[in-house]
């Protein structure tokens, strides 16, 4: 099973292919709509990342063709658009796309959306999350590290819970702002940095093993050091 990327812009296509492959996905790249449609019909594709501005056969036509064919109708489609017009978004979603991203977008954002789409369906919320020596009791909103209880404010807990739920995934600042504070716009990046620093003071500073890591230029990831790259 792999992800099909249909993108005509050479650099974009290349980095999407490389980035998604390095994120652990099998990737097929098509440089135009017709090839893309062909691959979607012939191969086992679990998700399509579709640029709507394509030569010859545009993204909308590809999307309509995918939805019209019973063999491909169920494949989730995430479309990419450079024109952030309401009509565009509405059109894409009406044609049956599952999600969209406006260019320019953060790569980690794309990966996060793809993961969400692939996981779609009943998501089981874990009541207990363990990362390294940290235990999070989601229902009781309690956090312990190595048996030591850590007192967090409601927002600190919400931030930690988000990072822990998606452990091992790099979360962009925009995603964090949106999920924790419901701020759905590109805001001052310092706000998230400060919030994470505050959380780290309680979660990481008193302990030798750090769990929350900065991925420069991308965002934050929560994982036990031993599980990270050697």
């Amino acid at each position, binding site marked *: 099973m792999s992800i099909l990327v249909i993108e005509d812009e050479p650099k974009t296509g290349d980095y999407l292919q490389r980035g998604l492959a390095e994120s652990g996905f099998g990737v097929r790249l098509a440089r135009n709509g017709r090839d893309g449609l062909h691959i979607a019909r012939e191969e086992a594709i679990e998700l399509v990342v579709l640029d709507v501005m394509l030569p010859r056969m545009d993204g909308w036509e590809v999307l309509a063709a995918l939805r019209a064919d019973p063999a491909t109708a169920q494949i989730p489609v995430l479309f990419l658009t450079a024109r*952030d*017009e*309401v009509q565009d978004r509405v059109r894409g979603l009406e044609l049956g796309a599952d999600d969209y991203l406006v260019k*320019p977008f*953060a790569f980690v954002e794309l990966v996060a959306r793809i993961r969400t789409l692939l996981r779609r369906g009943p998501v089981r919320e874990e009541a207990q999350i363990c990362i390294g020596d940290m235990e999070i009791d989601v229902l009781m909103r309690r956090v312990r590290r190595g048996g030591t209880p850590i007192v967090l404010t409601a*927002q600190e807990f919400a931030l930690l819970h988000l990072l822990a739920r998606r452990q091992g995934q790099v979360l962009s600042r925009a995603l964090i*702002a949106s999920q924790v*504070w*419901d*701020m*759905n*716009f*590109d*805001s*001052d*990046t*310092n*706000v998230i940095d*400060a*919030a*994470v*620093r*505050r959380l780290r003071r309680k979660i990481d500073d008193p302990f030798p093993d750090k769990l929350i890591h900065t991925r*420069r*230029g*991308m965002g934050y990831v929560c994982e036990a050091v031993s599980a990270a790259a050697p």
Partner: protein
Amino acid sequence: MTAFTMAGWRQSLALRVSAMFTLVVVLAAAGLGSYLYHAFAGEIERRDDIQLLGKLRQVQMLLGRPGAAELLRAQPDYFRDTMSGQENSLVRILAPDGTPLADINALHETYPLPPVAGVVPTLDAIRSWTTSTGAPGRVVAGSARLDNRQVHIVVARAYAERSAMFAGYRRQIAGAALVSALAAALLAALLLRRGLRPLHGVAEHAALVRPGTLAQRLEVKGAPSELLPLIHALNDMLARLQEGYARLSGFSADLAHEFRTPVANLLGQSQVMLAQPRSTGEYEDLIASNIEELERLARMIESMLFLARAGQDEVVLVRQPLQALGELGKVAGFFEGMAEERGLVFACTGDAALTVAADAALLRRALANLVSNAVRHADTGSTIALAAGRRGDSVELSVSNHGAPVASPHLAHLFERFYRADPARSDAEGSTGLGLAIVGAIMDLHGGRASVHVEGTRITFTLVFPAA
């Protein structure tokens, strides 16, 4: 052809005014002519009627002479010659029982017999009739004595010549009206051409206005007073256009400048890095730094697009009642970490029941921009006050902080794009210089406004939402 004429009619002021003027002249000439004609004709008819009564009187006198009855019987031809005088005079003498005693009727006309109106009939007793040739006639009947016998005298007359004269007169009046109409049309066209000449002057001036010559104004001197309001309005429009154009081109210049810095950084540091072999760490640092610059550019582009769309009302508002104090609390919570690092405290005050009808995402964005500013500029250790209140029908949300005083000349410009009170801090901490412009645009979209107020070192930004 018809369409062309209709379009010409609608479009040409000169044509319209000339036509109306001509119409007025025609109506006036026709009215005057008709009045004079009727007065003249009435007078002529009255004189003819008086003459008709005179004729009756003459016949009465003739019959009153001794021997008149004898003469009438013995020499009717003589009597006829004496009586008729004029060819168009018709006289009939009847016995009371209706037997004609004499009938002078050279033209063999038939005319009605009007009621007998005594010895001295007045003008009212005269009746009209029409000859066999269609000419108008008048007839009157009176009584007289003939040999001690009462007889009736009927005198009638036909006025064929008079009708012909009247017809000629009418033709003359119509001709005069037509000629005056033509003259009026011609004169009106000429006068309007002259009168509208200042308009051509205005048009010529206006035609010279180009984006680069917006400073020019239309000439007010020598313009007729009727055109002054138009010229003033056009000049005011030019002033507004000039201002808008200047702002727009200033904005483009600012935009280019704002883009230039990050692009120069990206280009420069990448080239420097590639010039020599570097360690992996150095490359990583470069890429991370590039990403930071690029994120700033992306944010700027997003903000620009938002402003452009808001300016053209293309942003769809989803208004809903929001708990004002709750929204302030949310935004304060978002900035809590950043505020804490600077030793700042948020104080949210207001009525918990107060709601504001606004688009949730846009309201948060506006508040976040204000709070972000406040956190950046507040004095260390001070309190940032967030307040929700009602003033009259509107709901006011305000963000205020203590900080370096902002000089009042800057205040009016704070909501302009890329306007910074302190140019030295232009690149401070990821600010795009568009935050307050976006706040202003969001308030415009809500039909409200954003204002700023300074009191000593306290600066307060207020969002005013009018009652929905």
